[in-house]
C-alpha cells in the first residue's frame, strides 16, 4: 500500500471515531446551554408578568393561554412555597400539525393583598430529534469533506512533498555499482529528505569507491603477477633445456611449468573479467553470429575431432547483434569450450540459431547443473582442477554488459539459451 493511502486509511478511521465522540459532547453542551438560556428567559418573563399583574389587576385573571404564553389562576388561601418548577412536555402545534416540545415554568406568587396565584409560563423549545437529525447530517457532511480534503491534500501536497522521496527510491532502484551511473539530484524544501539524499549519496559513493578499488586491486594484482610468472616460466624452460636432467626431474619441472601455466590462464581470465566489468571493450560493430559461430566451430574442430565430439550448427535465421567483436568471440568460444570440455566420447554439441536467440546444447554428465551457481566465479562442477572455473563467469559478465540473458536448461542434455534484446 502506498504511503499516501496508508496515512489516509488511518486518518479516516480515526476521524470516524473522533467525530461522534466530539458530536456527543457538543450536543450535550449545546443543549444544556439552550435550556439554561430558555429557563433564564422564562424567569425573566415571570418577573415582567408579575410586575404587570401588580399594575393591571385584570391580568390576575388569565386562566387560558389564548394568545398569551401564560396563565394566572387564583389559588385558595394557604401556605405555598415560592419555588420555581420547570418541566418539559409536548403540546400540539397547529402550524406544524404535530406535537412539539415546550418548556413550562410553574410558580406561585402573592398579590399585594396576600392572595396566592399560580403562574404558568410556557415557551416552545428546540426539537431535539430534529436537532439531532440536523447535527447528524451536518456531521456526515463534515466527515466527507474532511476525508475529501485530506485526500486532496495527500494527493496534491504530499505528492509534491514526497516527490523527492520517490526520486531517492528510484535512485536506489536504478543505481548499479561500477556502471558509472549517477544519482539524480533532488531539490526538496524538507530537511529530512535532503539529509536522506546526502546520506544515500555518501553511502553509494563509499560503496562505489570500495568497489572500484577492489576491481583496481584485482587488475593491478593480475598485472603485477605477469612479470614474475614470465620469469618463473622462462627460467624453468631454460633450466630444462640447459641441464642434463633425469626423466623424473624433467617430469617434475614439467609439472611445475604446467602449474605456472594454469596460474597464467587464471590470471588472464581474471584480467579479462575485470576488463569486461570496467567496460574497456567499447568499440562495437554489427556481428553476424552465424558467421562467427561457423568460424569458431572450424577453429575448434581439431579439439572436437580429438574428443570425438560432433559439432552441428542449425541456422533457422540470421542473428545480428551490435557488440564488441572480441567479446562476441569470447562469448561464443567460452560456451563452445565449455560444451566440448564437459562432454564425452561420441558426444555432440549443437548450435541452433534464430533471429533473436541461440541455443547451444551438448551431451555430457547425466545430471543437471545447479543453475544458481554455474555462473559464479571459480565454481567447478567436475572434479577436474585444470579448468579455471571462470569461463562461464566471463560469459555472464559479457551478457550483463549488453542486456543479453542466458538460461540454463537440462533436458536429457545440457542447454544454454542466449536471448538477445530485440532491436
Amino acid at each position, binding site marked *: 500500500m502506498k504511503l499516501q493511502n496508508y496515512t489516509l486509511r488511518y486518518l479516516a478511521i480515526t476521524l470516524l471515531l473522533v467525530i461522534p465522540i466530539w458530536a456527543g459532547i457538543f450536543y450535550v453542551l449545546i443543549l444544556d446551554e439552550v435550556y439554561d438560556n430558555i429557563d433564564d428567559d422564562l424567569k425573566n418573563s415571570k418577573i415582567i408578568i408579575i410586575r404587570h399583574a401588580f399594575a393591571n389587576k385584570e391580568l390576575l385573571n388569565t386562566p387560558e393561554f389564548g394568545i398569551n404564553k401564560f396563565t394566572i389562576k387564583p389559588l385558595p388561601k394557604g401556605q405555598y412555597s415560592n419555588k420555581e418548577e420547570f418541566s418539559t412536555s409536548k403540546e400540539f402545534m397547529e402550524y406544524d400539525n404535530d406535537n412539539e416540545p415546550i418548556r413550562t415554568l410553574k410558580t406561585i406568587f402573592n398579590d399585594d393583598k396576600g392572595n396566592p396565584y399560580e403562574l404558568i409560563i410556557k415557551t416552545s423549545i428546540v426539537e431535539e430529534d430534529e436537532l439531532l437529525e440536523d447535527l447528524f447530517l451536518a456531521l456526515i457532511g463534515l466527515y466527507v469533506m474532511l476525508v475529501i480534503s485530506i485526500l486532496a491534500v495527500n494527493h496534491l501536497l504530499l505528492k509534491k512533498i514526497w516527490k523527492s522521496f520517490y526520486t531517492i527510491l528510484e535512485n536506489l532502484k536504478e543505481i548499479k555499482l561500477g556502471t558509472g551511473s549517477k544519482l539524480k539530484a533532488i531539490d526538496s524544501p524538507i530537511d529530512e529528505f535532503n539529509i536522506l539524499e546526502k546520506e544515500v549519496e555518501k553511502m553509494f559513493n563509499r560503496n562505489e569507491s570500495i568497489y572500484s578499488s577492489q576491481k583496481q586491486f584485482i587488475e593491478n594484482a593480475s598485472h603485477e603477477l605477469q*612479470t614474475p610468472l614470465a620469469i618463473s616460466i622462462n627460467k624453468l624452460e631454460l633450466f630444462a633445456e640447459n641441464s642434463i636432467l633425469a626423466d623424473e626431474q624433467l617430469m617434475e619441472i614439467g609439472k611445475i611449468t604446467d602449474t605456472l601455466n594454469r596460474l597464467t590462464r587464471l590470471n588472464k581470465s581474471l584480467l579479462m573479467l575485470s576488463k569486461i566489468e570496467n567496460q574497456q571493450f567499447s568499440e562495437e560493430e554489427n556481428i553476424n553470429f552465424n558467421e562467427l559461430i561457423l568460424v569458431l566451430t572450424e577453429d575448434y574442430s581439431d579439439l572436437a575431432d580429438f574428443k570425438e565430439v560432433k559439432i552441428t550448427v542449425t541456422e533457422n535465421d540470421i542473428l545480428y547483434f551490435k557488440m564488441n567483436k572480441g567479446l562476441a568471440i569470447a562469448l561464443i568460444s567460452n560456451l563452445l569450450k565449455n560444451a566440448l570440455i564437459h562432454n564425452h566420447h561420441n558426444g555432440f554439441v549443437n548450435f541452433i540459431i534464430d533471429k533473436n536467440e541461440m541455443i547451444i546444447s551438448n551431451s555430457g554428465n547425466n545430471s543437471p547443473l545447479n543453475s544458481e551457481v554455474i555462473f559464479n566465479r571459480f565454481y567447478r562442477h567436475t572434479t577436474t582442477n585444470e579448468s579455471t572455473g571462470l569461463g562461464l563467469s566471463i560469459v555472464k559478465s559479457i551478457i550483463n554488459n549488453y542486456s543479453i540473458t542466458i538460461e540454463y536448461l537440462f533436458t536429457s542434455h545440457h542447454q544454454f539459451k542466449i536471448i538477445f534484446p530485440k532491436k
Partner: protein
Amino acid sequence: MKILIIEDEAGLREVVQQSLEKEKYIVETAHDYTSGLDKLGVYDYDCILIDIMLPNGNGLDLLQELKRQKKQSAVIIISAKDAVDDKVKGLDLGADDYLSKPFHLSELHARIKSAIRRNNHNGDNLIVWKNVTLSPEQRTVSIDNKELVLNRKEFDLLYYFIINPNRLINKTAIAEYVWGDHTDQADNLDFVYSQIKNLRKKLKDSDAEVDIQAVYGIGYKMN
C-alpha cells in the same frame, strides 16, 4: 644479429638474454628509459624488445624516438598489460609485434625471427633446416626439393619447430601457438601428442632428416 632488450625486471632481462644468446644472437640490455635511449642512439640493432612500462619513461616513447631516427630495427613490444589500446598504439607507431607477459621463450623466438624476416624485405626468405626447406610466405614445405603437402595446422606446427630447432618446447606453448587459447590444459598433453603424431609420420614418410621427439612431461624437441 644484434638484439637489444629494454626491460626493467632484472630476472626477465637475464633469462631472455641467456635464451637469445643460445641462439647465437648478440644481446645487449638496458634497464630503463634513459639507458635504452642511449643505446638506441648509438648502435643499430636487428631487433629491439621494448617493455612499455619502464622506470623514468614509457616504452612507446622510445619506439617513437626510434622511428624519428629512421632506424630500421624490428621492434617487438613486451607488456604486462594485455591492453588492446597499448597494442593498437604500439602497432600504429610502427612496432612489428606485440607480446604480452608471460610468454614462452619459444614464442619469443618465433616472434623475433618472423619480425626480423619481415623487416629485411628480402623477398621470400626460406628457412632451411637439414633437408627441410620451408617458405613462410608461400606456406610450402619441401624435403630434398620434393614438396610435402601439409594442412594448415600441420604447417604451423612444423614452422614453430623449425624456427625453434634443438629447443625444448613446452606443450602449452605449442597448443597456444597453433590452436590459440582453444584447448583446455587438461587435454594439452594428449591433444598435442595426437596432432604431432601425424606430422611425425608425414616427415618420416618423406625421409626428412628431422624428427620431433617427445620430452617426457614437458613437451617436444626437434632435431
